[in-house]
């Protein structure tokens, strides 16, 4: 597993070069943005059930057949598995966001996920739709552009408006999930 720092080290080692000024600029930005990054990660961890439940509910609403007998979310045991997977994906996205690098998400969550879903008969189009909704919800919460109650705490004195860049980074991790399932 890598983070923003060790990713720089691994690529420098491949060249056999020491890490100088240019390579350090990105890392200095990562350190400077640490509080925003923590706030953004908190936006996920404090709203996990809400994000996952909304995404699965949205997916079902768009395909009502899913919860009917014979549907992929019938009976409730399978619906519960769906909610659980939503939370697992959010957990790995939150790790990747904190680390500033997608390797933990790729190695521990996405590697083999598509094959597993194929073997279990999970329809990937629906799974992808749920991930898309999670992405939209997460970005909206992080940037404080969601409607309804305030879900972004900003305990490190950040505001959602300052988290635009990091929300975009989080969106890119959801895109990796979508790509892996496609």
């Amino acid at each position: 597993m890598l983070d923003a720092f060790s990713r720089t080290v691994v690529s420098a080692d491949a060249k056999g070069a020491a890490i100088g000024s240019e390579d350090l600029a990105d890392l200095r930005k990562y350190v400077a943005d640490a509080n925003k990054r923590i706030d953004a990660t908190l936006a996920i961890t404090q709203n996990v059930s809400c994000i996952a439940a909304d995404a699965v509910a949205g997916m079902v609403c768009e395909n009502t057949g899913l919860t009917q007998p014979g549907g992929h979310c019938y009976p409730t045991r399978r619906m519960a598995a769906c909610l659980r997977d939503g939370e697992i994906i959010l957990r790995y996205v939150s790790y990747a966001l904190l680390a500033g690098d997608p390797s933990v998400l790729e190695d521990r969550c996405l590697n083999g996920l598509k094959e597993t879903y194929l073997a279990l008969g999970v329809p990937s189009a629906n799974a992808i739709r749920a991930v898309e909704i999670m992405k939209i919800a997460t970005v909206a919460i992080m940037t404080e552009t969601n409607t309804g109650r305030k879900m972004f705490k900003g305990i490190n004195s950040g505001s959602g408006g300052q988290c635009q860049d990091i929300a975009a980074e989080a969106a890119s991790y959801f895109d990796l999930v979508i790509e892996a399932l496609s």
Partner: protein
Amino acid sequence: MKSAVTTVVSAADAAGRFPSMSDFESVKGSFDRAKARLEAAEKLASCLDKFTNLAVDAVYQNGSYEQANKDKCVRDIHHYLRLINYCLVTGGTGPLDEWGISGMREIIRIQLLPTAAYIEAFIFIRDEIKINDVMSQQAETEFKGLLDYLINALA
């Protein structure tokens, strides 16, 4: 690769939980030192050749080692300083442990290399070179800490 962040993430993943407030605190704590670390890494990168040559020249001055091996010695010292540069970036000893120390004893023993020469070189860098001229006090402390770590591992 072990670093402050990956250690926290690994522990959270092993327990299957989301990163907690104490995880965030420990990540933040490591960032408080990051400024000095990154400065040390930057300055070390620009002085890598200089430090290496000064140290190797000092070690070979007393004539107790074969001049023929000098180039190889330069290469190795340079290599270790590069790994220290990586450690300063990651904020942990991961790069030294994984790429410099594990297996090192075996290699040194089998090639009949004088470990003492390496130790002399790093002690020279630690004690004789005026590191303060190129980096701040805090950065120097971070750099010397890793030099000590390496010297202990070689000894």
